[in-house]
């Protein structure tokens, strides 16, 4: 059985002003195998982050169900950890303090908290910076801390919401390769939301392409590129092929968006 099983998922929001109900995600079905790296890609407003937050248990479902290892998701749980896009490091805590935060919240009792945190900090390559505070770190370093904090609680599933979205292109590439290195060691199931096509392909075993109005899955593409991967793969024919396919999907979405704008 798959590790994550999403069935007929629908999430509605009530707009705060008009009280109008709108559907962020509708009729989504997806299964993710244990140890699989799944990227979710789509243009902004396609509900990809909402989907991820629903798996995290931070958004309540309107229809359908999400199961992890056969257990219904009703809220956050120690089997999942989230790497947020930004600003989720507590500025008054040091790197180590931030990495310990999740462990503290989950009342972790698998040994010394400091040791566990340091282990994770070294894993993401920040050993020297454990006493630094977030404002002393670059964007890339902050996201490493963010990842270390999520890995520290030893989740079954790692949920990442555009973690490299705010980084410059070069740092982003480095972080992508770094994430794969960590993932190959940690062997976690990973759900990774992005709007960057190359990133989506580079990381994935499976790409979920989402479309808008309401957010739905357009296609699930299997990625058979060999692992371990490095930057060289970006120039392979197989990669180009996948890139073309994804571009076409996103272009379709963009043109339908323009149409809506013209009508309005």
């Amino acid at each position: 059985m798959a590790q994550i099983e999403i069935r007929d998922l629908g999430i509605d929001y009530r707009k705060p002003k008009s009280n109008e109900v709108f559907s962020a995600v509708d009729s989504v079905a997806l299964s993710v195998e244990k140890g699989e790296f799944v990227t979710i890609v789509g243009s902004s407003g396609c509900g990809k982050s909402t989907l991820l937050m629903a798996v995290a248990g931070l958004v309540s479902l309107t229809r359908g169900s999400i199961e992890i290892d056969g257990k219904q998701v009703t809220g956050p749980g120690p089997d999942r950890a989230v790497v947020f896009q930004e600003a989720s490091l507590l500025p008054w805590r040091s790197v180590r303090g931030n990495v310990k935060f999740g462990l503290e919240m989950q009342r972790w009792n698998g040994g010394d908290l400091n040791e566990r945190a340091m282990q994770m900090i070294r894993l993401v390559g920040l050993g020297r910076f454990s006493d630094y505070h977030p404002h002393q770190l670059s964007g890339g370093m902050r996201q490493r801390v963010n990842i270390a904090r999520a890995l520290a609680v030893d989740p079954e599933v790692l949920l990442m919401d555009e973690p490299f979205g705010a980084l410059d292109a070069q740092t982003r590439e480095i972080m992508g390769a770094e994430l794969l290195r960590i993932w190959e060691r940690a062997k976690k199931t990973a759900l990774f939301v992005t709007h960057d096509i190359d990133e989506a392909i580079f990381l994935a075993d499976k790409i979920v392409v989402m479309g808008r109005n309401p957010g739905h899955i357009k296609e699930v593409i299997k990625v058979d590129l060999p692992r371990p991967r490095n930057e060289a793969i970006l120039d392979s024919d197989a990669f180009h092929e996948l890139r073309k396919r994804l571009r076409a999907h996103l272009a379709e979405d963009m043109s339908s968006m323009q149409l809506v704008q013209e009508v309005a």
Partner: protein
Amino acid sequence: MRSAEITAEPAETRQLSLSFLRPSRSAVIGTLAVLAFLVLWQIAPTMGWVNGRFTSRPTEVFVAAIDIFRNDNFLYHARISLTEFVAGFALAIVVSIPLGVLLGTSKIARYLIDPPLMALYIAPTLVLLPIMVIWLGIDMAPKIAVVFLGAVFPIVLNTMAGMSEADPRFIRMARSFGATRFDIFTRVLVPGSLPALLTGLRLAVGRAVLGVIVGELFVSQAGIGYQLNLYGSAMRIDRLLVYALIVSAFGYTLTVIVRSVENKVRDWRSK
């Protein structure tokens, strides 16, 4: 990892500084200006530019200061004023922090109490002084009440703001790790609102000092304000100035202390 990712080294490697031996230009100019003013003030009455009865002289103020510390029951009066200050301020802290926390975390409480609170904050609480005297007499009690009223609102309002303006992304992050409401309160809201609370305390210091002095000026039997009244009617400019300096130094010192704690706590915000 690339070294370009390191944006800031910690400031611990600061080199040994001997800059106090080479005072900055602004310090030199400032000191000279003060000296010039003192000299001018000293000679002006002698030269007949001003009436020394109204301006006194630096030397007279200095002598008055020594006299006050020696013979004026200074410690007795200072103790009275300080007691009023500490009692009123402590009472304000005890009441305002829980109230600020409640208002900052509960929307309903905020809707209920915020408008009158804001009105009271803006209105000078000293207008209530005569009422306090009628209710509480002319002893320390009405001054304590006025100090309390002056200090309580800035602390409540700043604590409330610090609590309610917590970054929702932090709260979501904490929830994702299974944080309870209590965890979120103690680990996210409290540390996050500490700088705002300290700002409230700092603003409260000034109002509290004002409360003590004005309260004593209005009606009292002892205290710094009482002494001010006494020497005011005796036209002792020299002694009045000494007391004015003492009061400002007290308020200034407290403010500086709170501000330095504030800056330390707020350090993480500086980018």
